[in-house]
């Protein structure tokens, strides 16, 4: 017995919304066909434009306009048709059958078929995408009964599967271009042939990328724009100046949360809309503990530290109220009031816990010293660390701040694990199962945003194994609620806030995707 798409979507809709619906742009404008959109990206220069072999945000954002995937996310984080116009899922959750939209062509005019999907998964996504093996290890076989049908048979039920088929994780590449070649060195990585709404027209290295409308796009009357230009602007000040001079129209990754109020004042009167919103793959600003440290391995010490941190003050003074307080690593899925454990600010309790841990105050009023790794790549980390230093002093902890660039901080916390405390912003989405990469024993020290804490709990590992295979939404939720309760009791991290993002766009445009780390094409964007 098959469960139809409508049923699937209805149960997905039962999940808590992972993103606010953003009505970007105003309906007051009469939209017109054509025009150009200039997008400023605060990233490094991409080395290629193939999202099937990387997780770099800039490549995904540009690539989402050139390539397609079986599904896309709507603004609520629900998978909706893209290359696949519909799909069926067997009741046991082991067979996924996708029906591809007919008449789709690659940018070079060759027809798109189910063989391209099979090839992309088997030869590119599984072996070469950095998280492909993690995401798609449940796949047993991929069958292509005809040109417009793809059947995935799984080894075991894997609930996140449907959430991982969009362009960020499962870009579909042309088999006729890549088959039999060295995928990583194929010239098409820098001169892409996709099925998406736009084609690459010009790449002026270090300057900009110009995309032009794909006249043969398989969705009728899309895209509306004639040209789409991505300008790489790593410097925030230059980005703001370019906005003010109207050299760009949209900054999806370009606005730092601390600039929101300033930009509202400066750019609001000039026809810019500046705001903040949640997004689908938002991170959770967190304090990590190295559990191998002789001081921090004591639960009382970690609990004391949790009681010393005032999240509301961090949110209001440092984050300028951009975001929400988080009491667990997946608070977008398990709400704060369902976490089961909370650590309210309480200096007296913190002192009592430290006394109980056998760490009394010395004559100078201090107990011991700790260090915290802070990446200079994030505007909020140093001010947060400064606040923590003041709070910790109340309990006799001397906190020393170790500032370094992003690469060094990631290496120290997640690979070398040579740290005591660390600030970071891991993102566990679009499915709660992704949280396993940060909290299972198998992922200790496995690189960026894995289990840098050295947290090992066999019960939690077993619950993660269980949760990933559950199909019933209520059962899954109960499993992840147990995981969250266990993790927050063991306290390898102190989650601080949900990292909402700031956006800026010119009122002259409608239909913009929300940005942040939400990757979607600009096929619906219209110029007013």
């Amino acid at each position, binding site marked *: 017995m098959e469960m139809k798409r409508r049923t699937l979507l209805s149960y997905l809709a039962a999940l808590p919304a992972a993103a606010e619906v953003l009505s970007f742009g105003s309906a007051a404008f009469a939209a017109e066909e054509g025009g150009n959109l200039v997008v400023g990206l605060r990233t490094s220069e991409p080395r*290629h434009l193939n999202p099937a072999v*990387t*997780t770099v945000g800039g490549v995904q954002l540009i690539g989402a306009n050139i390539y397609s995937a079986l599904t896309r996310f709507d603004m609520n984080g629900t998978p909706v048709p893209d290359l696949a116009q519909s799909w069926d899922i067997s009741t046991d959750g082991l067979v996924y059958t996708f029906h591809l939209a007919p008449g789709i062509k690659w940018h070079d005019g060759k027809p798109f078929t189910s063989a391209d999907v099979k090839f992309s998964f088997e030869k590119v996504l599984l072996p070469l995408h950095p*998280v492909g093996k993690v995401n798609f290890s449940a796949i047993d076989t991929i069958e292509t009964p005809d040109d417009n049908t793809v059947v995935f048979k799984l080894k075991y039920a894997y609930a996140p599967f449907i959430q991982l088929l969009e362009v960020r994780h499962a870009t579909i590449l042309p088999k006729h271009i890549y088959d039999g070649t060295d995928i990583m*060195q194929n010239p098409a990585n820098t001169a892409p042939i996709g099925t998406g709404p736009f084609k690459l027209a010009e790449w*002026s*290295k270090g*300057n900009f990328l110009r995309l032009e409308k794909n006249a043969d796009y398989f969705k009728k009357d899309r895209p509306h724009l004639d040209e789409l230009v991505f300008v790489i602007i790593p410097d925030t000040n230059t980005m703001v100046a370019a906005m003010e001079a109207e050299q760009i129209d949209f900054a999806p990754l370009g606005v730092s949360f601390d600039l929101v109020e300033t930009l509202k004042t400066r750019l609001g009167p000039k026809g810019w809309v500046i705001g903040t919103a949640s997004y689908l793959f938002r991170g959770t600003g967190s304090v990590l503990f190295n559990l191998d440290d002789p001081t921090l391995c004591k639960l009382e010490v970690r609990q004391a530290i949790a009681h010393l941190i005032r999240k509301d003050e961090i949110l209001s003074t440092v984050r300028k109220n951009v975001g929400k307080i988080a009491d667990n690593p997946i608070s977008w899925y398990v709400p704060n009031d369902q976490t089961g454990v909370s650590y309210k600010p309480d200096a007296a309790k913190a002192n009592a816990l430290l006394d109980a841990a056998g760490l009394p105050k010395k004559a100078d009023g201090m107990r011991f010293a700790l260090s915290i790794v802070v990446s200079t790549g994030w505007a909020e980390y140093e001010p947060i660390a400064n606040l923590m230093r003041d709070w910790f002093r109340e309990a006799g902890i001397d906190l020393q701040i170790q500032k370094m660039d992003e*690469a060094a901080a990631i290496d120290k916390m997640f690979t070398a694990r040579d740290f005591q405390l660390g600030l970071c912003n891991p993102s566990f989405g679009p499915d709660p199962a992704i949280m396993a990469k940060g909290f299972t024993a198998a992922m200790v020290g496995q*690189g960026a945003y894995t289990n840098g804490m050295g947290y090992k709990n066999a019960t939690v590992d077993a619950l993660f194994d269980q949760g990933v295979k559950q199909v019933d939404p209520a059962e899954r939720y109960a499993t992840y609620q147990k995981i969250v309760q266990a993790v927050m009791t063991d306290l390898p991290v102190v989650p601080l806030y949900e990292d909402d993002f700031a956006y800026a766009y010119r009122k002259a445009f409608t239909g913009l995707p929300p940005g942040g780390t939400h990757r979607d094409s600009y096929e619906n964007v219209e110029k007013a």
Partner: protein
Amino acid sequence: MLIRLTIALLRRLLSVIGLLWAIVTLSFILIHLAPGDPIQSLVGENGGASPEFIARMRAEYGLDQPIFVQYWHYLAKLCVGDLGYSIRFQTPVWDLFAERLPATLLLLASSIVVFSLLGTVAGVYSAVNEGSFGDIALRIFVVLAFSLPVFWLAQLLIYALAVKASVFPVMGMRSLFIRGGEWTKAVDVAWHLVLPATALGAWHMAVTQRFVRTSLLQVLREDYIRTARAKGLASQQVLYRHALRNALLPVVTITGISFGTMLTGATLTEMVFNWPGLGRLILDAVLGRDRPLLIGLLLISSVLTIVVDALTGIVQNMLDPRTRVGGTG
């Protein structure tokens, strides 16, 4: 004479090779000691790459070898002119360099040429009109130009002339939607060049003005100038035919010396103006711990500086016989 010249050249060549070797070795060690992992940067910003994937990438770039083996392989390749492969861009370093060098050279060359000329004219004006209001105003400008960091001046120029006055573009090397022939495009590039070249060249102009002014004032007090005036030569003739040639020698020297400083300044200027040259590439290399790219860029910058230094010496020799090997001192 010829033997002495050959020995001098060989000595120079050996010192250059030694210097380049020291740069490569020191860079190699420092980058190796710096925390951070190029492969972690390469696999993306969200992490979670499988250990097998990371191990395969590490092996592909030889990063699984001991540091001495990596160093030896790098030196061996360097000896045949191979700067290696950029880890971040997965492209030969030479290719990236060839892609970005023209923009940096355009910025540097236009800045040096235009602001050397302006500095010279300003220096001559100050010397001839010593103590005048114009001279005092120029001297105040020189103090300001010396003191302002290049990135701060760049921001100031952007705010005043691009954002507020909308006279020049904020960033980039060309307009995004420009249509027209080569001449139109060249004018467009020149228009984009004004602010970054000014930010980069202001310091050089100040230095040149100062040197020319001091040098010319000194020359104008020489005996042969007094003799020329006594012969009844017009002031203009004395200035242009006798004084200026000798007074301009320091301009050549200071331009050569400034090159290295301006190359560093170009990196900051390119960042602020989003200029598509080597500067942004260097930043990407540092943040991504891209050892081959960073060492390659440092090496190339060093070679450029050495070449400019040598050219400065040659021009000096042509202008001043006293500086030649075996020349009269």
